[in-house]
């Protein structure tokens, strides 16, 4: 008998159907990958197993864990199961821990609750599991608070909480989506080892086929609350019998067509030139009278960008890439060095003097939900950068320009009078691109522009970026930790590590033959669907 058996699970929230007859089973020691795009119901399936569904959710069907009927179980019985027999790891490690409690308290709390152990014994066990997840006592005593840890370290604490009592089933809901690729690999390996050691069943929820291909014995593919296909991982993902499986696989490896990759008009004047730029941040005060050592976020960086060129700046989180981007956008000033755009320095200029630069240099951010004021119309939002123009456009001109920008990004003129909430995530990212191109800039700085998007939407947005580059000749600086984005859309790559650019060159060369340790680590950690499937087949012989 399976450890977890879900039969015909149907769930609605206030009458809106979320899950429609989901079937899924996990055997002891088995890793099940649950794949789907946002809104497909994968997280809700996990919450139904935990019985932690949102208010007003109603579930029917059968969920059996270890012979216990979960949907019929009392809250008391569920409290005994949660954290003891079923552990759960969440997506966002930055907010998953209580900021006012030490990690020791948070790990030992569940141990004490389930085993009735006294404080000292529970803390000893907490210590052991924290050691096991890679947080040794010397650097991570139990008295640490979450804000003293990085995202990857916090995720290790969450894993320690979930695995402290060696549950029979571990549910991991997008456990690495918020982390950079190197951390992702470390966390996935940790999960794999823990599952093997204790013969846990693992339900791994992810939107990333490559991650699932690497980790899971079997996969279940969901869409719109229904299971599309399920089966043995390598077979399902290589044969792609179901059209949706094929669509997902193709979208996740999509490379947009870019016929003329900037014959990098090497003779053209440099559009952007960064010369020996450094940026220091003041260190934390050591005592009342002594300042801490300043922290150098960007260290002596130089590079240049030609018109129409598409360049990726890749690196792990915290390597200084966003700081560099802020300085290029003149939102922050370098401590040393010079930044020249269109042949003139950006430094020491006031806002009025910066206007011609700003209109030629726009930005697209990661989060298409947070970057719009929800109470403004699309016309107002998209036309915002127009104040950078010298003459104020008339209302008619303004509408015309907005319409043109919307058209360029594949939206309709009629969308102008709508509000942001009327658009999906992908459409919103199109809106931010429309806002960026409305002043017809020569450079767009895009900070992780597709990492919050589903694979199929992401493929479309990458196509759009490629298309605008080809038609309008916009140069791009893509800031990303995702090498597939770099490979899909850029001519050149710069690898940043600890504030320095450690390697640069043509995208294909660097991603296929990285030289520096930092680049090698990034390439080795990046999930790759083909490689993962090949490895699985090899293991099976």
């Amino acid at each position, binding site marked *: 008998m399976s450890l977890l058996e879900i039969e015909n699970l149907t769930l609605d929230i206030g009458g809106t159907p979320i899950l429609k007859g989901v079937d899924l089973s996990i055997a002891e020691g088995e890793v099940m990958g649950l794949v789907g795009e946002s809104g497909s119901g994968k997280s809700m399936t996990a919450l139904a197993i935990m019985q932690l569904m949102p208010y007003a959710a109603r579930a029917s069907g059968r969920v059996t864990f270890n012979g216990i009927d979960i949907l019929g179980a009392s809250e008391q019985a569920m409290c*005994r199961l949660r*954290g003891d027999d079923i552990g759960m790891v969440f997506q966002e490690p930055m907010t998953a821990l209580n900021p006012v409690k030490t990690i020791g308290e948070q790990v030992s709390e569940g141990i004490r609750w389930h085993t009735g152990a006294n404080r000292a014994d529970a803390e000893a066990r907490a210590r052991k599991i924290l050691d096991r997840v890679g947080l040794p006592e010397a650097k991570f005593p139990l008295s640490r608070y979450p804000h003293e840890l990085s995202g990857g370290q916090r995720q290790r604490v969450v894993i320690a909480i979930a695995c402290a009592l060696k549950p029979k089933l571990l549910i991991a809901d997008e456990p690495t989506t918020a982390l950079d690729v190197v951390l992702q690999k470390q966390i996935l390996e940790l999960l794999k080892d823990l599952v093997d050691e204790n013969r846990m069943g693992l339900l791994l929820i992810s939107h990333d086929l490559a991650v699932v291909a690497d980790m899971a014995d079997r996969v279940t593919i969901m869409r719109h609350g229904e299971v599309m296909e399920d089966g043995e991982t390598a077979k399902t993902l290589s044969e792609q019998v179901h059209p949706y499986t094929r669509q997902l696989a193709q979208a996740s490896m999509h490379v947009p067509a870019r016929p003329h990759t900037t014959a990098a008009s090497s003779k053209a004047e440099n559009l952007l030139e960064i010369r020996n730029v450094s940026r220091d941040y003041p260190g934390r005060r050591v005592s009342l009278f002594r300042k801490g050592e300043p922290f150098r976020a960007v260290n002596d960086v130089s590079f240049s960008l030609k018109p129409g060129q598409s360049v990726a700046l890749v690196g792990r989180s915290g390597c200084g890439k966003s700081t560099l981007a802020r300085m290029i956008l003149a939102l922050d000033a370098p401590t040393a060095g010079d930044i020249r755009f269109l042949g003139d320095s950006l430094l020491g200029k006031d806002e009025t003097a910066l206007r011609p630069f700003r209109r030629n240099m726009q930005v697209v951010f990661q989060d298409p939900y947070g970057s719009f004021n929800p109470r403004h119309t699309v016309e107002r939002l998209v036309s915002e950068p127009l104040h950078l123009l010298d003459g104020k456009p008339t209302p008619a001109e303004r509408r015309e320009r907005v319409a043109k920008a919307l058209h360029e990004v594949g939206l309709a003129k009629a969308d102008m009078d709508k509000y942001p909430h009327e658009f999906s995530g992908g459409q919103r990212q199109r809106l931010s691109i429309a806002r960026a191109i409305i002043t017809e800039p020569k450079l767009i700085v895009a900070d992780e522009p597709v990492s919050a998007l589903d694979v199929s939407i992401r493929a479309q947005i990458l196509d759009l970026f490629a298309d605008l580059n080809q038609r309008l000749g916009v140069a791009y600086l893509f800031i990303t930790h995702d090498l597939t984005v770099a490979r899909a859309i850029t001519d050149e790559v710069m690898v940043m590590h600890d504030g320095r650019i450690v390697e640069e060159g043509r995208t294909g060369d660097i991603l296929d033959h990285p030289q520096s340790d930092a680049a090698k680590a990034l390439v080795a950690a990046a999930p790759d669907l083909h490689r993962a499937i090949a490895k699985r087949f090899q293991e099976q012989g």
Partner: protein
Amino acid sequence: MTAFLLKRLLIGLATLVVASLVVFTVMEILPGDAAMLMLGMNASPAALDALREQMGLNQPVIMRYLNWMAGLAVGDFGRSFTYSSPVIDLIAERAVVSLPLALMALVMSTAIAIPVGLFAAARRGKTADAVAMGAAQIGVAVPNFWFALLLVYVFAVWLRWVPAGGFPGWSAGLWPGLKALILPSVALALPQAAILARVTRSAMLEVLGEDYIRTARAKGMPRRIVLWRHALRNAMIPVLTILGLQFAFLLAGTIIIENVFYLPGLGRLVFQAITQRDLIVVEGVVILLVASVIVVNLLVDLAYALVDPRLRIRA
């Protein structure tokens, strides 16, 4: 942590100096000076001059301000002309009524508001929530003197449990003194509690939607325990802010309440001083109230640091 404390202390002191300047300037702008007020409108110019000389009113403004400040620093608040006794003695005599009153009201409002807010948040959308928040709505809307009258009618006139007003003095014993302060402090506390309960509820609801609450639930902790152990402390931060701000309103409220209940407190002292244009007393009491608000907010800042470890290093 010491740097944080020191910084807060300096800010508090600076605020006090600015407040003293404002109080002093206002008194300067008002027509007439202390000598004229003491001798009345019909006093002879010679007598006025003599008194001004004696009181140091002929000195330049700066000197008078500095003298006043130097006096304040050593506890010399000047001399009241209506009571013809040192202001500091008047204040000390009245503070033993007002201070316990304000403290009782503060403790009472917190003791009512936090459980009610917690309870309403835990039962969000249910009848209990609606009842608690309906009551809070009434508490916010009804002025405290009306509560005071209602309380007097029910508990003093009708049930005869406590006196309707007046203060027997602490020399009469602890219990009679406290008994006289019960109704006034309830009347002061209720409107404050109503606001605080609403803040507590919304802060709790916000915290209950946080990811770490789900993490705690996924550990197997029952809702009730999660509420107390994980949600409450995080929700305390906005509650403390409001508590600090409310203290100033509480002090202002004592002026009305002490008059309703005939309590010989600071509120009544300042009220009488204003009607009798005893400006030296007004100045002294106002500075004292400002200082107490600053001290309370300093304590709130300290409490923040106790509640939230992230604040301990930042400053």
